[in-house]
């Protein structure tokens, strides 16, 4: 009691009162000012520019940049391609990562940690280097054709397939970590209980393990889809200009053509599309969780 009274007196000491009351605001202020000045203002300017016309027509709010993009069949081809590549990369990442996460969850050997270590350590390597590795695999004189018999040689460089494989490889660690995080929370005694009640291994997987891993699958899919939609270096290097994505167009319009108006509209559409799909996945998953009885 005595000690608590002293502590209370100390924290309420008059010399500290001003700092105690407002000190935390002073500590928070620099970061808030920084974020406002360098994130909120720039994003607002991108949004504003997207509603302006090119060349001296400023001041007139216009939807023509958006109309121009959304009525152009060339842009639609790019939008559909971006969605298709991201969806396929997400699906592929889920398919290849799921058994890997199961291995991490079930294995009790010392190789488990080695495997987990191997899976996450590429995250310490720049994505551009991992992309370059896939370039070296897909180029005509690359590693893939060296492994294939001469009659089966393929030219996969600058294809959507190459982009999808690259994105899958670069982002699958996120998927594994997400699935692993949702499985790791589960008590393994659940499985013993299910087995002791006579459930077959397949039944245990379908009725116990899989439903419990769905939140992780959804979380992983949201991450992989969002980062695939906005990835820039990988689609440019592996897809080339024949397979432009929305991110490529945003780069081209803003930097190479110095058109912040149409470029702003492309950037806004990119964000709205990727966030929109993520939002739909969130809604869909909540109903799915309810049906599966997990949260």
């Amino acid at each position: 009691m005595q000690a608590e009274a002293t502590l209370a007196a100390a924290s309420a000491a008059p010399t500290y009162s001003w700092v105690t009351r407002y000190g935390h605001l002073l500590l928070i202020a620099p970061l808030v000012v920084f974020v406002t000045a360098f994130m909120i203002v720039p994003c607002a300017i991108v949004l504003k520019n997207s509603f302006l016309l090119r060349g001296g027509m400023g001041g007139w709010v216009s939807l023509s940049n958006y109309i121009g993009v959304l009525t152009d069949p060339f842009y639609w081809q790019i939008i559909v391609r971006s969605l298709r590549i991201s969806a396929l990369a997400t699906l592929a990442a889920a398919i290849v990562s799921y058994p890997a996460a199961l291995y991490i969850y079930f294995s009790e050997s010392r190789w488990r940690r080695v495997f987990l270590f191997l899976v996450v350590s590429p995250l310490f390597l720049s994505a551009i280097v991992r992309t370059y590795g896939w370039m070296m695999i897909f180029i005509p004189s690359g590693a893939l054709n060296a492994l294939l018999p001469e009659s089966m040689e393929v030219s996969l460089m600058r294809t959507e397939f190459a982009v999808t494989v690259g994105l899958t490889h670069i982002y699958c660690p996120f998927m594994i970590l997400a699935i692993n995080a949702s499985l790791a929370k589960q008590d393994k005694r659940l499985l013993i209980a299910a087995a002791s009640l006579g459930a077959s291994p397949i039944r245990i997987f379908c009725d116990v393990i899989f439903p419990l891993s769905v939140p992780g699958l959804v979380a992983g899919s949201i991450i992989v889809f969002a980062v695939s939609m906005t990835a820039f270096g990988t689609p440019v290097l592996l897809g080339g200009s024949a397979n432009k994505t929305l991110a490529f167009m945003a780069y081209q319009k803003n930097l190479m053509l110095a058109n912040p108006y149409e470029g702003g509209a492309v950037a806004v559409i990119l964000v709205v599309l990727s966030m929109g799909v993520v939002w739909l996945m969130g809604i869909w998953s909540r109903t799915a969780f309810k049906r599966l009885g997990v949260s």
Partner: protein
Amino acid sequence: MQQLVWHSLRRIYAIIFSAFVLFPLVVILILSFTNEGYNRFPPASYGLRWYREALDTPAFVDGFLFSLQIATVVTLISGLLGVAAAIGLNRATFAGRNFIIGVIMVPLALPAMVMAIGLLQIFTVAGIVTSPYALAICHVLLTVPYVLRLTLASLGSFNRTLELASYSLGASRWYTFRRVMLPLIAPGLAGGLLFAFLLSFDEVTAGIFLSVPGATTLPAEIFGYAAQGADPVVTAVSGLMVIFAAVLVAFIERFFGVLRLIADEQPSH
């Protein structure tokens, strides 16, 4: 019997998956030692020719040094802003607290590209060169959420009475921060700073959008060369990056624990 089949299937998959994960990195390492004038797998002869060439190319050496500088400055600014805000937010009870945290976390969801485009437009209008200023700013925005989150997490588990005890014994705020708070939040803070450094050093998109000739990050430099086509000198630089990352991972594993940093897994056994 069935158990054994499942067991070996799982193990075989783990091996195949590891091969998939490491495949591009191994290809880079093998190809980087070619002695030929072009990328052909497998190389007809081996040597250090392209490594020498890479170290003689100013673009790559300068890019590496520039990336190191940017990452250092970004870590410092991110650390100062993030830790100060975390200490302030930890104790704050005002209404907008969660809103502020939410806004600071936005860069985790907002594409780096959009922030880079916004900064590019502002800096162009203001007539200021985007690199290093806009680039460092963009990297701070991208990294500060990690610093804030990890510091907040370790402050959350920090017992307030220790701080009050220090005050009651006559210590000043600064002394209490240095001798009581800092040592207690050090592990979380170190993780956040390490993360910030690596993220900034490896970051590609903002680097490409905001770099200017003469002040280009190494990932942006690699992108620029690779976009022109496969060049053995890029393979050698990539090989150096793989080796650098491997050394870094070994270092982090030794002193920090890779899995603790990324997978939030405590070292066991």
